[in-house]
């Protein structure tokens, strides 16, 4: 006699107990502290904050620990937590030109006011495994300048002064919020940028790369890439003044792209924009290139049907919590639908005179 499978609840509880044990790993190895993750896996923490849309390095470190280092799972934990938080208000726009810089480079000028600052970069490291790190080599402290860098103006502002860089219109009215309103098309640029800022780094990287290879090519240079700390402030109407309440690290990229000009506008350069929580320059550059690609239509460029130029395609698929959830849901039982397909295929085969599958159930 066939007995249907039972005991889903116990199976789930057992699986989760196993997960907890697997997360801990070999108990002879000291347990990882979230402070260690925050300090020593800082770029993973930054990515979780960026795609989780929540600036909190301690929570991101906890999420990474809980997720066993699975970035997207950690992002998911942060998103699910974020959505339960109350909203106190909206901050004032951050002033990235007042940023305390830790890195600032331009590919379009050899030098510029404020200088080129390499900062803590992987660039020009030789990618040779450092076995000294495995052996616990002591890292000597880095030499520090006596004074902090002065805030530096955006490099593209020098072009703007000459009229060579297209000016960005002031935003009109309230910034849309895709966490409070369902996505709607056409999506204005502020909404697109919001979606890209929390979008999956790998997806945006591939799209940006595709534009470089000709699928919506727009000739991008990195006009400026800057990483540093900005102050966050808000207006408190009850108090009648602005109050600074936090400092956050941001990565900002402005790309310089060509624009042929039109009958009404002389040729000038245009801009793609990327802004990301933490130190995430691959993401910021990717975002700038995709942002610029999504402006193809407004620039009157030949829209060739390249994926990166298609706002509905990009915005509907850039969120890794949506995409991974839906992708992985096909693990769930689908046997009812499969049974329906099975019957349909059998019926169609019978109708087509195909040999019936030998019916061993009889």
């Amino acid at each position, binding site marked *: 006699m066939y007995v249907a499978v039972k005991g889903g609840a116990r199976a789930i509880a057992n699986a989760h107990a196993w997960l907890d044990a697997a997360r801990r790993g070999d108990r002879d190895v000291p347990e990882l502290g979230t402070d260690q993750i925050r300090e020593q896996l800082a770029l993973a923490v930054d990515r979780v904050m960026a795609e989780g849309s929540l600036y909190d390095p301690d929570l991101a470190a906890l999420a990474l620990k809980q997720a066993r280092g699975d970035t997207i799972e950690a992002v998911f934990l942060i998103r*699910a937590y974020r959505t339960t938080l109350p909203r106190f208000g909206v901050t004032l726009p951050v002033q990235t030109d007042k940023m305390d810089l830790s890195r600032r480079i331009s590919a379009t000028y050899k030098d510029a006011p404020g200088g080129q600052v390499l900062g803590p970069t992987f660039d020009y490291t030789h990618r040779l495994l450092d076995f000294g790190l495995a052996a616990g080599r002591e890292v000597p402290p880095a030499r520090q300048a006596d004074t902090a860098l002065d805030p530096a103006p955006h490099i593209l502002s020098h072009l703007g002064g000459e009229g060579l860089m297209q000016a960005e219109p002031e935003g009109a009215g309230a910034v849309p919020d895709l966490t409070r309103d369902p996505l709607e098309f056409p999506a204005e640029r502020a909404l697109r940028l919001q979606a890209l800022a929390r979008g999956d780094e790998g997806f945006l990287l591939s799209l940006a790369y595709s534009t470089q290879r000709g699928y919506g090519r727009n000739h991008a240079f990195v006009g400026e890439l800057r990483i540093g700390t900005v102050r966050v402030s808000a207006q408190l109407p009850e108090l009648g003044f602005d109050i600074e309440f936090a400092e956050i690290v941001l990565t900002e990229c402005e790309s310089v792209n060509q624009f042929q000009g039109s009958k009404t506008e002389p040729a000038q350069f245009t801009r793609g924009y990327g802004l990301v929580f933490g130190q995430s320059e691959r993401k910021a550059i990717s975002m700038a290139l995709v942002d610029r690609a999504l402006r193809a239509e407004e620039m009157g460029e030949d829209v060739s049907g390249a994926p990166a130029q298609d706002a509905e395609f990009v915005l509907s698929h850039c969120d890794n*919590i949506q995409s991974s*959830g839906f992708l*992985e849901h096909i693990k769930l*039982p*689908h046997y009812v639908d499969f049974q*329906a397909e099975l019957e349909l295929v059998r*019926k169609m085969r019978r109708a*087509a005179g195909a040999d019936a599958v030998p019916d061993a159930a009889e």
Partner: protein
Amino acid sequence: MTDQAYNFAYLDEATKRMLRRALLKAVAIPGYQVPFSSREMPMPYGWGTGGVQVTAACLVPEDTLKVIDQGADDTTNAVSIRSFFEKVAGVATTEATAEASVIQTRHRIPETPLHAGQILVFQVPIPEPLRFLEPRETETRVMHALEDYGLMQVRLYEDIARHGEIARAYAYPVKVEGRYVMDPSPIPKFDNPKLNMSPALQLFGAGRECRIYALPPFTRVESLDFEDYPFTPSKAAGQDCAICGASGSYLDEVITDDAGGRMFVCSDTDYCATRVQEASA
């Protein structure tokens, strides 16, 4: 016991108000997909977040909740969602269809006819019935606005030309009150007739796609078909349930050995168990 760290039914009150407004509009425009600002839930998109949000917006402490997946109460995701609501809403739960006031389901409509006052909440992966004909929301929205369902008719007729019948076994599109074409969620088309003129309120939630839609009780729901190729619900041909002997229920095929042996059993576990119980009483 409700987990005190969270609000009743998990969601904050502003989110519930947003959902409740969307639900009322959905009921007022049967079959029309109302956009809503879906929240990230503590389970993944694609795993019932839309259904969970709709259920959370509807639940009252006095409710008795039933959760099924594939017709079964003890499939893992059904177990997981049921325990979520036990924890965050403290509601009673049941496996008995007749005793439930709210039923959340994935892929099935229970065999036991629903009664007035019950709410059936469907988890929906892709709410747009035209999505597989036209991937762009900007296009499909216009097609609904203009009641332009020609593309769907053409596609279904192509099926008939190629296969001799409409090659859709589940998520078979329906027309609601003669106006909106609607995706009934991936229920087998065997279940489609149960949608029509049901005394229960049927609510559909698609979390990732941010859409809610509804069928009020006693609403006309017709499966799309052609005069010369009328719609036929289908199930495993000529089989009865090997456990309870039911002939009119939807059956799962179970492979019993590696020599091609198989058997057919009810997908609705409560229906099957109740029949076995009644037979032995």
